[in-house]
């Protein structure tokens, strides 16, 4: 199996060696061929994609093409896209056709990109394995018996298997970075407020952030360029001066200070993951970087803090799914309360219900101070740890996930075990910092390992530079799965 980067596709389109329609058709063929075994996509609509591609080609013929015009991509099914089924991986929204575009979709459409389809995901982005989706599990292209990670598992698997050159994802506690790591691709969660959340179905509003998923850091930068920007429809969207995220890619890394938090070498970290990460860091030293020991003393609290705050927000965010105006409504009910109960009991899966219950509990009278308020205070401490660490270093590095891809069903019976798979990523969301994952090796079973790079606020361009430089001297990101994919 081979794949092409966004960059190479863009060059081909610019040179005129192929058209957007041809490229799009090519990807649709691959989806047709492989989606049955991978289950990356919830919706595809070839006619619509090809029509969009034809428009992109016309735009190019008029001389109005931008750097992304005609490039196909896949959208996580958390983004509302006009006239597309937008399910968020849930039975609750299995009949919801969005009447409007999310900011991200609108921006990428405006750039001339072509939507290949909507990708599978954990239900309402709640999960780390893509096993909570109403539309079935997604298989990891490196080993079909393993999970692709989650919640952006469909986007990750689609890019890894070459069913889309790039994809959008969202990251509330690691949902871009962890599946990127488990499928051997790159994924970036920007600083909170960088990409508008308008039209992105909310899980935990104060943590949710959209970002790009791709094969290379350079591709991430190109896609991120088109995703960011102030949006008056999102009150948490930040107004920032324009940044070209490709601008610093080629800068040498001499003098780069890499912070290594000792807390990242926790119990539960697989030795092969630790070794691959250590090897990548050694490579960075060869590129001129220096290593700084830093500490994130409250990191151990990030999982419990997250599992108070995220469910609290989610319990309220998901209240709108009541069967009244759209979405699933029970076929039979005796009165209003019964309609609510049945519609929600039928429409939501077990993990979503678990988090609604946790969230409702921690916000309840008498528990609010002990849980929610305390968690908010700890959240500030966790963020302060990062601020202190960044006084000593430019980027922080460590593993993205404590293990490589685990087997389907391996952790789904034990939510706590599942929650711990996000231990390295969650703190970044709590602090609102940017974080990314890039491939940095493989374990003995041929499963990819992800290196996490955490930057200071708004330092995405530097992080992409750091990632890109490693990709100039390594080929982990160029490997494509072959063994696992039945075709």
């Amino acid at each position, binding site marked *: 199996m081979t794949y092409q980067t966004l960059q190479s596709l863009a060059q081909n389109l610019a040179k005129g060696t192929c058209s957007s329609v041809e490229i799009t058709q090519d990807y649709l063929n691959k989806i047709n061929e492989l989606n049955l075994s991978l289950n990356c996509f919830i919706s595809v609509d070839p006619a619509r994609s090809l029509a969009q591609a034809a428009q992109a080609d016309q735009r190019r013929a008029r001389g109005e093409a931008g750097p992304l015009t005609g490039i196909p991509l896949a959208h996580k099914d958390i*983004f509302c896209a006009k006239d597309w089924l937008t399910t968020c991986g849930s039975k609750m929204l299995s009949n919801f056709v969005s009447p409007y575009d999310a900011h991200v979709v609108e921006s990428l459409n405006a750039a001339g990109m072509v939507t290949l389809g909507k990708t599978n995901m954990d239900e309402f982005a709640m999960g780390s394995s893509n096993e909570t989706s109403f539309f079935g599990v997604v298989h990891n292209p490196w080993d079909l018996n393993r999970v692709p990670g989650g919640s952006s598992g469909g986007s990750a698997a689609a890019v890894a298997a070459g069913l889309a050159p790039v994809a959008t994802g969202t990251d509330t506690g690691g949902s871009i970075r962890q599946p990127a790591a488990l499928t051997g691709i790159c994924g970036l969660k920007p600083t909170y407020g960088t990409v508008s959340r308008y039209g992105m179905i909310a899980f935990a509003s104060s943590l949710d952030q959209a970002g790009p998923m791709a094969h290379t850091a350079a591709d991430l930068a190109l896609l991120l360029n088109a995703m960011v920007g102030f949006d008056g429809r999102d009150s948490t969207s930040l107004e920032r001066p324009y940044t070209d995220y490709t601008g610093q890619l080629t800068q040498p890394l001499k003098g780069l200070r890499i912070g290594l938090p000792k807390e990242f070498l926790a119990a539960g970290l697989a030795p092969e993951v630790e070794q691959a990460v250590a090897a990548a860091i050694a490579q960075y030293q060869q590129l001129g970087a220096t290593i700084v020991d830093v500490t994130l003393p409250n990191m151990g609290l990030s999982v419990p803090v997250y599992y108070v705050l995220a469910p609290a927000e989610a*319990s309220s965010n998901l209240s*709108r799914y009541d069967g009244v105006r759209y979405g699933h409504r029970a076929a039979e009910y005796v009165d209003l309360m019964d309609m609510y109960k049945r519609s929600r009991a039928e429409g939501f899966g077990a993990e979503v219900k678990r988090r609604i219950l946790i969230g409702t509990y921690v916000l309840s009278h008498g528990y609010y101070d002990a849980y929610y308020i305390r968690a908010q205070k700890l959240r500030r401490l966790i963020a302060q740890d990062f601020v202190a660490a960044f006084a000593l270093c430019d980027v922080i590095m460590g593993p993205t996930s404590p293990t490589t891809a685990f087997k389907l069903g391996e952790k789904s019976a034990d939510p706590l075990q599942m929650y711990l798979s996000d231990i390295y990523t969650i703190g970044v969301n709590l602090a609102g910092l940017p974080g990314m994952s890039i491939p940095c090796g493989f374990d003995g079973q041929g499963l990819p390992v992800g290196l996490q790079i955490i930057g200071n606020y708004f330092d995405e361009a530097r992080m992409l530079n750091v990632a890109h430089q490693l990709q100039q001297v390594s080929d982990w990101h160029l490997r494509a799965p072959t063994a696992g994919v039945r075709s």
Partner: protein
Amino acid sequence: MKWEVVIGLETHAQLSTVSKIFSGASTAFGAAANCQACAVDIALPGVLPVLNTGAVERAIRFGLAVGGEVSPYSVFARKNYFYPDLPKGYQISQFELPIVVGGNLTITVGEQDKTIRLTRAHLEEDAGKSLHEEFRDRTGIDLNRAGTPLLEIVSEPDMRSAAEAVAYARTLHSLVRWIDVCDGNMQEGSFRCDANVSVRPMGSTVLGTRREIKNLNSFRFLQQAIDYEVQWQIGELEDGRSIQQATVLFDPASGETRMMRTKEDAHDYRYFPDPDLLPLAVSPERLAAVRAQMPLLPTERRQVLVDTYGLTVYDADQLTASRELAEYFDRAAAGATEQVGKLCANWICGALSASLNEAGLDITQSRVSAQQLRGLVDRVLDQTLSNKMAKLVFDAMWLGEGDADQIIAAKGLKQISDSGELARVIDEILAAQPQLVADFKSGKEKAFNALVGQVMRATRGSANPQQVNDILRSKLAV
């Protein structure tokens, strides 16, 4: 036993913004169901609220008007509960940190002024409407009202009678209209009150258990509901029962309140700060900018009227009942002397108010403009018109017959101030009424008035009364 009534009011004033508090949809009243509900109002997946700065500005204006503290930092919270006309499953409101803290309102009941303390005022969104009667066996949902900006104004339990509660509500109603934050249209629900009512033995300092009467949308209902509720609570207590904290509804048809829910069924609203909205910061600069735009408040305007024109407090009070009325007076009395101002006030509070009441119009719909009224006053003052004639001219102006001068000319209503002409008429009367002249000379003062009456009759009211007096006196003194 003598009982003391304790009342606190929570008032929802709909802020007069063109669009909703968190979306761009229109707030206009009366559109077809669900035609003014956008994606944000119907809470589609993925939509987000964006705060309307016009609503914030109005809340600040209110805070300044009542002398409350405008919080430099307030927070929107989610109040979570399920109801079909609450699309998000939560209402965005302010809970722990409201935009306005404290303040007070002075009310007048009878001759007595009383200051009612305000607890707070906070911004929130309205819910939609459930239509239970329109559909058989079903409930319709109209989300046009969902997201309409409200200012909830909460008083301390400082009122001691239904009359005080009504006076408070009226004063508040007049104030929010005066400072132009709410249109005050009670029929359309733009201004509605919840009354917290309790009773306690006279002299007690402990509050009794309260019951909250929801959604009173007229001053009359407010009065009736409280009166009924007070009697009901006293009856319960005197019969040896106790009051349970509850929410009740007032039924205007029966004049009774009835239980909606008790404290036991009260929701746990699970308030928490809305992560979709940043804390609302009001900088000193912004506060100063709003303050600079504030109109003079009713009490300040009242004092200006008393000081400038020597009006009675009563008249000044009348003229400041609404900002429109005060502005009408300002236009009528523009550049006027104290005397003219007083006359303008008399006409506005007298003939004009009567005509407006009779026609069911408010001052903005007056058929006599302020300039026309001033024209009339000027003709009274320069003695062209007697008061009696002036009323005729006013009535003609009301009927649209033109300005005072046009009507005077058309009707030939000029007052006779020509002393030669008057002397001639008076001579005729004196000649024709020897008995009255004789009576006067024998000391009967009444006879003088009768002679004046004769002169006025002969001139059909157009004689200048003062001049008639003077000429008669001088002629009879001879």
